[in-house]
């Protein structure tokens, strides 16, 4: 595992944000291009969100983030907006999978200690067993996050399943 550090501003969402809230199915009908879909990100729950995104923002949410449909544009539209990680108390399994498979970092930890606008750093060392830490730079709080298992880490570090397969042509386990 190579050391990792992602830093950005926290954008807060609550529990049960489903994939239709991230990007609605009817937008997907018009285009699959992340650069187009990013304009409609979270429009059902926060219509002002899309226009206020700054590159490097991080999504911080409650439990069951990405529940509902398995549609992968709910991940690629987030990446298209320049967001590199989602921190949540829990994820739906399909969102978690799709995130890893596209190189979006899903971080599972207690998110109660993070407020909107806080500056957050996600940090891991090259010791996999040490797991990941989420550091709230605005308050100094250090939150322990779940470590990624090896194969997920390999896929994530490759940048997703496409570059992983381009390199290896198959799964290596």
């Amino acid at each position, binding site marked *: 595992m190579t050391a990792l550090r992602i830093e950005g501003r926290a954008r807060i969402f609550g529990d049960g944000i489903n994939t*239709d809230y991230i990007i609605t199915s009817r937008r997907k009908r018009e285009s699959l291009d992340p650069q187009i879909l990013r304009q409609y990100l979270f429009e059902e729950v926060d219509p002002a969100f899309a226009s206020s995104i700054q590159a490097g923002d991080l999504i911080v949410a409650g439990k069951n983030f990405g529940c509902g449909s398995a549609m992968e544009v709910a991940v690629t539209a987030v990446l298209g907006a320049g967001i590199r990680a989602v921190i949540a108390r829990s994820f739906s399994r*399909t969102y978690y*999978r799709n995130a890893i498979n596209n190189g979006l970092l899903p971080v599972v930890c207690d998110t109660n200690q993070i407020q909107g606008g806080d500056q957050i750093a996600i940090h891991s060392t090259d010791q996999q067993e040490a797991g990941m830490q989420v550091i709230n730079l605005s308050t100094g709080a250090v939150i322990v996050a779940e470590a990624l298992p090896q194969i997920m880490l390999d896929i994530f570090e490759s940048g997703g399943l496409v570059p992983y397969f381009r390199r290896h042509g198959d799964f290596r386990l």
Partner: protein
Amino acid sequence: MDGKTISEKILSAKAGVDVRAGDLVVCRVDCALGTDGSTPMALDYFDAMGGKEVHDPDRLVFALDHYAPAPNAKTAQLHQRMRSFAASHGISLWEAGEGIGHQLIVESGRALPGQLVVGADSHAVTYGALNSFGTGIGSSDLAAIMMCGRMWLRIPQSIKITLTGRLRENVYPKDIALAMIGELGADGAAYQALEFCGTGLESLDLEDRLVLSNLAVEAGGKNGVFPADEKTLSYLQGRTSHSFEPVFPDSGAQYCREVEINLNRLSPQVALPHHVDRVVPLSEAARTPVQMVYLGTCTGGRVQDFHQAHQVLKAGGGVARGVQLVVTPASRTVLETLARDGTLADFISMGAVVVTPGCGSCCGTCGAIPGDGVNVISTANRNFKGRMGNSNSAIYLASPASCAAAAVRGAIADPQEVLSGATR
């Protein structure tokens, strides 16, 4: 060592190693479904991965179901691309109008006991009713399966759902599923498998079990698997020529949680807007006005669902003024059966709008869209705000009979009241 759950046994066999909950493995996939909602991106990814030949086209099948028929030029092009790719690679494709991919997987005997059958759509959990490990994947996973026939999986812990007793009259499998989701919560089974067992299974036909498996994902479940029995085997009779090996849990299998549901005690249930786990007894929502009633989807669009709804509609004298009844059979086979037995003609004479078999209005991508301020009661699986294409409408989820009772009354009502001719 301790015994294994059904999920651990199926995935051990598919990984070729003895695994337990928590292990990460790469499994051989027996069959993978791609829909028009997920396949176009998978084709982009397959190309980007350097894909030339599809690994095993016999294990893949595409369904044009989310946009059936294509409502605009963009989606029509997606269909053209899928048709062309499927033809050049020898992949089977179900045309728009043939039905919902999950229903077609089941009807065509492509999900068999002991198999790992996945779909690039969350409701692939439906196949668990056939003693398969059925689960939803994304477009990247589908592309990887096209490359190598395999996928990565974390072996889930299992929640044991024991069903006892027998449903009372006018209480239906959808009511069991809603009660279960209410009990577990929308993330109560996150990353975990649901394994059904108990004496209550004896009274549940395969179509009943499909409803329970289908809704496992609404509690976050990775699958919702049943053991195989006579009903499973008799359903598969004539649908497959492949051999298969039913899988049962070992005694001493480890479960992370056990939930018992006594079917005798269940009453009709309803999920209130806008959360699938906001489940209450239907009586608590009674007399809520509804303007649209939706019968269809991979949850509630099969023959028996329409028969149950039809019985209530007939008893109640048809659809109330001011209510739009939308009927979307889950497959062409379902539609043909309803046409042959007269149910369809009755729906039409009652004023129902009959929509092409497919996902229809469920996810707002085609079919009837509710207007602002409209309350919808639906046999579907999700009631998120905006799910049916308009965030200013509200969706209630219930059994086909309860939906039909609401169509008769113009308001949420217990189907028992309608069937017994009780006055409002």
